[in-house]
């Protein structure tokens, strides 16, 4: 078991290094950061001095080595745009993104499970068909379009919800939260729906399919034969067995919810890490781009590692096969 965990951890580190190399080589095509920093009539000598002070003239290998050495110590340098340490900027923006991602996931889980169960149990009702239609919209409409549609309906036309930002936030230590103020809660609604809609439709379809599958199994038939109430059968037995894959998927998807928050955050000017990343790309702010990509890959790798380990704990059969496989 220990050997397995170690092997997986080493693989994870390999993935991180690969991501580092790929992202680092991509930055060379992002443009010249110095151009984004100074005005057009800045003289060539001044530009050259800036390039040198940033170490942009060193060979790529040297730049990469320096970058990896710093990253290993969680030093990601100073943002070119803001002249602040990237670590501080990311920490400052992290609560906004995490809060949004958690709310979106909760929305997706609740909505997806309820709609999924309903459309599995009452397959031919009008409402079930309506849910299917909604799920089609959620899967096919791009996020930014959903966001803009919501803004025009609920902010511009009806004036109920704010179109941008986080509202008022409360500071709890270094964490900031919008969950404790009315304007903060209102500001969370539309971005959460926008971000969670795709996951919701995914979960709904999954629950529906699983539920239909489970309802055909023997133990449900036996439960009926035992004379249990429909409610007990549906929710006590069928749903509980449906939830195992749902939780797995939702857990794995949490990483992509954070990563895909980029688009939602841009549409709603949500001051999170995704927005920071988009601004960084536009301004060729390499330190922020690098740190963000490393962080997202770290989240993915960690989630996958944890899931792998949990699987082997839950299912001993996997353990033996995996350890024999290599």
């Amino acid at each position, binding site marked *: 078991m220990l050997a397995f965990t170690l092997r997986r951890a080493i693989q994870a580190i390999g993935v991180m290094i690969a991501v580092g190399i790929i992202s680092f080589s991509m930055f060379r095509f992002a443009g*010249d950061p110095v151009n984004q920093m*100074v005005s057009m009539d800045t003289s060539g000598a001044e530009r050259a001095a*800036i390039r040198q002070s940033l170490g942009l003239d060193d060979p790529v290998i040297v730049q990469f080595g320096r970058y990896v050495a710093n990253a290993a110590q969680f030093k990601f340098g100073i943002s070119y745009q803001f002249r602040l340490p990237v670590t501080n*900027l990311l920490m400052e923006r992290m609560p906004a993104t995490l809060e949004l991602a958690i709310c979106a996931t909760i929305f997706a889980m609740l909505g997806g499970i309820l709609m999924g169960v309903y459309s599995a149990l009452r397959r031919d009702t009008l409402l079930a068909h309506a849910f299917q239609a909604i799920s089609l919209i959620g899967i096919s409409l791009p996020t930014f379009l959903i966001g*803009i549609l919501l*803004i025009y309906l609920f902010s511009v036309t009806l004036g109920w919800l704010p179109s941008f930002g986080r509202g008022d936030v409360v500071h709890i230590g270094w964490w900031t939260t919008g969950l*404790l103020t009315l304007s903060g809660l209102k500001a969370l609604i539309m971005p959460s729906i926008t971000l969670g809609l795709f996951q919701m439709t995914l979960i709904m379809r999954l629950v529906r399919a699983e539920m239909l599958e489970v309802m055909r199994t023997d133990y449900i038939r036996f439960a009926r034969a035992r004379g249990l109430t429909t409610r007990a059968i549906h929710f006590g037995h069928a749903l509980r067995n449906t939830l195992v894959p749902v939780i797995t998927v939702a857990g794995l998807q949490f990483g992509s919810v954070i990563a895909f928050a980029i688009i939602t955050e841009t*549409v709603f000017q949500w001051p999170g890490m995704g927005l920071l990343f988009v601004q960084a790309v*536009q301004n060729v702010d390499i330190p922020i781009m690098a740190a963000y990509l490393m962080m997202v890959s770290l989240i993915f790798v960690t989630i996958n590692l944890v899931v792998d380990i949990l699987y082997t704990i839950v299912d001993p059969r996997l353990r033996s096969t995996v350890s024999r496989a290599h």
Partner: protein
Amino acid sequence: MSVRHGLLAMTLASALALAVSPASSQTLRYANQGELKSLDPYTLNESTTHAHLGHVYEGLIELDKDLKVIPALAESWETPEPTRWRFHLRKGVKFHNGDPFTADDVVFSADRVRAQGSNLLTRVPADVKVVKVDDYTVDFILTSPNPILLSGWDTWYIMDKKWAEANNVVAPTPVAATTPSYASLHTNGTGPFMIESHQPGVKTVFKVNPNYWQKPQHNLKEIVFTPIASDATRVAALLSGEVDVIEPVPIQDIQRITSSPNATVLSGPELRTIFIGMDQSRDELLYSSVKGKNPFKDTRVREAFYKAIDVELIKNRVMRGLSTPSALMIAPELYQLSKDFTRPKADPDGAKKLLTEAGYPDGFEVTMDCPNDRYVNDAAICQAVVGMLARIGVKVTLLAQPKAQYFAKVLKPGGYKTSFYMLGWTPGTMDSHNVLHDIMGCRNDPKDPNRGESNLGGYCNKQLDELTDKVLVENDIAKRNQLIKQAYEISIKDWSYIPLHQQALAWGVSKKVKLVQRADNQVLLYWANKQEE
């Protein structure tokens, strides 16, 4: 359960707190496409940053609503000799922290703005000596006469010497700072507003300065600035009344805003001139079907290109009427004799004839470089140009890229790698000399390595350079304007560039707000008045 109750109670409490707080009718909320990147006034030479910081800091002079120079921290000035400028400073002015403003601060700011790391090095030329005469008099001693010494001084903001020394920010924060600096996160100016809080890229709050030295022309107590990068969201925020002022308004949304009940669009000509340039220096173009020679070296080809492009059509179709076609490479607001020039009419048939005479009866192929996120409808303008040139047989391949990649390719550090390009230029000094020197000057001048730095096509005419040098030192305004005119005439005779237009600037403004729009596109809210609710 108790946790939930606690949360509920806190939510209720904050909701109540919101309900009882007084209606803040004099809080102005402003959203811009870009963020405020540094609070150090010498880090970035960029107009949006200058505009933001202009609420907090002030220069010796300022520009009024019509861009005329008026006294600010200097009450008056005179030139006892052509090379000596004497400034009499305003008395009784205090910085936000209470320090008095004196001549020492001016001398200090002159040193700081010229120090290593400043992006505004040329505001005060390096060979100028700044001498304190007494506490409220400062002399600027020049090595040669300079009629445009004051240009750009409206954004050379005066800083507090004592404060800078106390906070270890005597040196300017360089644009490539490797450590954070106090001055890039804090301010201490003499201006009408103070920065109360600043979260870079998220939100900045400006509070009114109660001890301002002159009567405010606004009725605000607070300005809340939020950057909103997404065009649709910025417009939606204005329409829903969540912000009062937005800049810029995308052209396609102007109609929707003007037809809405609670907002309108302020538009006017901007100072930036959009133009097209051609590589006239290489012996063979980098990106063209013509081999062994450079067609743009032939004046007739440049003239043909000029006449093939119909700026009126671009104005009507691409810019939806929001541009001012230009005969010169400078905006009419910045040069008094602009009226003397008229733009030749588009003439595709004449252009075709010229091209035939030059030996290209069937035209040729060339690649055009164009930014797609820098100027208003930039890529669309380039597409229109491609279509117009197709009419005279020139096949243009369009390479429209984001500005980060575009500038890296075409500017000097990238090796001027372009054959045919579109660019926009606002002279930083608000004066023709900058255009003649940076855009039209010959490159590789051994005496002046910065000449022609942004002359991407390498146009060169020594006669023009001689005039440019005379323009620099001529103190007599009328004579100077004539010299500039001669220089522009040479450039036009050579068909050196194809000026297109000055794009329009468009701000979205709530109907509750009265605002002054200045042609340099600086959003200055100290002239804003908001109707009380």
